[in-house]
């Protein structure tokens, strides 16, 4: 066993500003589930042990009381376990996952178009002029760069088959479906290099559809984008249709 195997039972390290809410909910949920499993399976084991070959068996199929007990137990368990899960999941969904007000309102939001294709992640930045589909668009292959501490608003599509964009360290998963543009957003909490994975089977080399996500300091990011945009303008080829997969940014998701 290597040194890292101590982390087998842990989620991938969280590097996002909001992922801790999911992680905390999962932790609560697993404690409740573990407790439930312990109680129910313990009860089952106890019942089997205690009543193994018991001389007499009850002749009835339950009394009104025992049936009420079952219903009450089920409702209480349901209320506690499913209830926590539901309420807190809804909170996350409403405040983070499907709340696009955050990237819309933040002045420094980074807009990113991602196009999945067998077996690479193409990422497009608007470049210096701030508009997509122009000569200074920056396009990278399986190499996504974002600044730390600001919302990153991703619009995602696919050229060929269905892919799944996964940023395990940012608690982001979203399908890339040909013919439609899906949207999500996330915010990095610290700098570092992380992995981009594909989670939908997309053909033979699905397992190699790996990219890197580099979270940079804001000034380093700006410098990189400026330089990349300059080079892109110089290398722009109007006839290269395969390079022009971008779309006009869809403002309201």
């Amino acid at each position, binding site marked *: 066993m290597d040194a890292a195997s101590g982390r*087998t039972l842990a989620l991938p390290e969280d590097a996002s500003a909001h992922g801790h809410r999911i992680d905390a909910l999962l932790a609560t949920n697993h404690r409740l589930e573990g407790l439930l499993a312990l109680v129910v399976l313990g009860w089952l084991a106890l019942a089997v042990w205690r009543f193994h070959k018991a001389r007499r068996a009850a002749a009835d*199929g339950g009394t009104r009381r025992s049936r009420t007990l*079952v219903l009450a137990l089920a409702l209480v368990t349901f209320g506690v376990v499913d209830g926590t899960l539901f309420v807190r999941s809804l909170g996350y969904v409403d405040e983070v996952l*499907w709340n696009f007000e955050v990237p819309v309102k933040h002045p420094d939001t980074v807009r990113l178009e991602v196009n999945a294709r067998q077996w690479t992640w193409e990422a497009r930045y608007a470049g210096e002029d701030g508009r997509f589909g122009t000569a200074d668009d920056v396009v990278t292959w399986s190499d996504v760069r974002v600044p730390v501490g600001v919302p990153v608003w991703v619009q995602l599509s696919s050229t060929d088959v269905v892919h799944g964009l996964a940023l395990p360290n940012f608690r982001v998963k979203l399908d890339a479906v040909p013919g439609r543009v899906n949207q999500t957003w996330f915010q990095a909490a610290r700098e570092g290099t992380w992995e981009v994975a594909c989670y939908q*089977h997309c053909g033979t080399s699905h*397992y190699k559809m790996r990219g890197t996500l580099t979270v940079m300091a804001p000034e380093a990011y700006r410098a990189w984008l400026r330089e990349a945009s300059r080079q892109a303008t110089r290398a722009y080829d109007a006839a290269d249709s395969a390079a022009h997969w971008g779309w006009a940014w869809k403002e309201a998701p």
Partner: protein
Amino acid sequence: MKALLSTDHKVVARAYLWAGLGFLGVGGLMAMLIRWQWGWPGRPVPGLGWALPESGGALTPPAYTGLFTMHGLVMVFFAITPLLIGALGHFVIPLAVGARGMAFPRLSAWSFRVFAAGGALVLVSFGVRLGTASAGWTSYPPLSAAHVFTPGVGQTLVMVGVVCAAVSSFLGAVNFVVTVVRCRAPGMGWGRLPLTVWGLFFTSVLNLLFVPVVAVATGLVLMDRVVGTRFFMAGAAVTGGGGDPLLYQHLFWMFGHPEVYILILPAWGMVGDFVAFFSRKRAHGYRGTVVAMGAVTGLSGLVYAHHLFTSGMAPMMGRAFMTLTLIISLPAMVMFLNWLMTVWRGSVRLTVPMVAALGTMVVFGLGGLSGLALGAVATDIPLHGTMWVVGHFHLTMAAASFLAVFAGLYFWFPKMFGRHLHTGLAMGHVVSSAVLFVAVFGGQLMAGYAGQLRRLYDPYQYTFLKHLLSLNQWTSVAAFALGSAQLLFVVNLVWTLRRGRVAEANPWQVGTLEWTCAPSPPPEDNYAEVPEVLRGPHELSQPEVYERLGRDWIGQAEALPEESKASTPEAQPALGGAG
């Protein structure tokens, strides 16, 4: 050959049994190969040099994609479905309701023939150039629908095979529903049906409703693939207007989610019956259990889109499907607690079917719990598409259905073949399988929680997954042990069919019709005389019966001796199993 011609439900059931067991073996071997790849990626598989000469027996990415695709398809459509529904359903339903046969005997025969044709196509697909299907068992287009993405005829053959399996399931379902509704023996009220029959009945209703959906979805993919339509094609695969790949995902999961209930409802029914039989008492809350199973059946089609939480669905839909998905856990909990309460205050006999039923409860309980986090949008995101999902649905669909199949098989084997399987071997098989199921699928849950994505040929391409190698190796070792444990069953089967002990008339001492009114194995018409049903399926440990007959069980169609009626002042036990 006889199986293809006969219209006797018992012969059809046996044909399904052999076919299902065969495919279970094929699917299981494929699972072993997948586990090998995850434990020792790219290393030659011992003994596989003949099949993959170019790589010296090592799995290549195309071979691997074919394997996990076919493992899923074979297990769902050609192993669990035929074993639970085709074999046990065809065998048990007419006998348990007191019918002379299925409502439509020739439809039974046709359902098997169509199934066999589908199975043959699947087997043929392994031999064609470029190999068998490889688009995943879910066959999402455009991957499955365009030759540029999945070349070769294998994908086409297999999808036709799936349509055959769907047609077969539909024919079987029509037959089961009509048999249960129309062919019950006199006195066999709805409240007197064994829970197994209820489970199979609800399963058949689901098959009737949702199997046509998958047949249509697969049919449309086939048209995209073969004829050049564009129902599900978009992006670079088409020029000009196309269809919508997401439409397929909705259709597929509208079937695919009910399908998990199709595969588990018969198991639930059997568990309900077996815990009652072998706790020697009536099922606790019979009516509540039936209502709970009905509620799950009713809700099953309304929760499907939790498979699409990450598809970019509208937030309104996400919230609605999260709510519905969590609600479905309530009836499941009621049913589970009813099983527990049945064992409580019983007189528990740890026979093989009982141990298998208890094992089913354990793995199903763990499977159900591990599924909760997948039902809520927020917690689904980190776990979606990971081995957590794989571990979860294997515990519920694979481990629970498998143990239930064997609970049923060990229970009805004496009725099917007139011989007893060897108890020690059977017990070893059931217990080791149950323990190893928890080990294997528990290992998958752990790997998934740590982020391992499913279906990766070499998960260790990702640095954040490298540390999971040793966990995966241990899980694979457990899986190989699980595979080897199945030899206990094979040995038992061969030995029993040759020289097994002849079964007594009612070895389990229960009152259901097949054990109390028909010889083992039953003749072509099942019953010399159609039984007249007087009571519920679990009339065990009734004081009155014990007093008058000196045993703790009474046949569903057996009358209490009249003469002793006067001697006992206390009231007759209520008829029917309603509790």
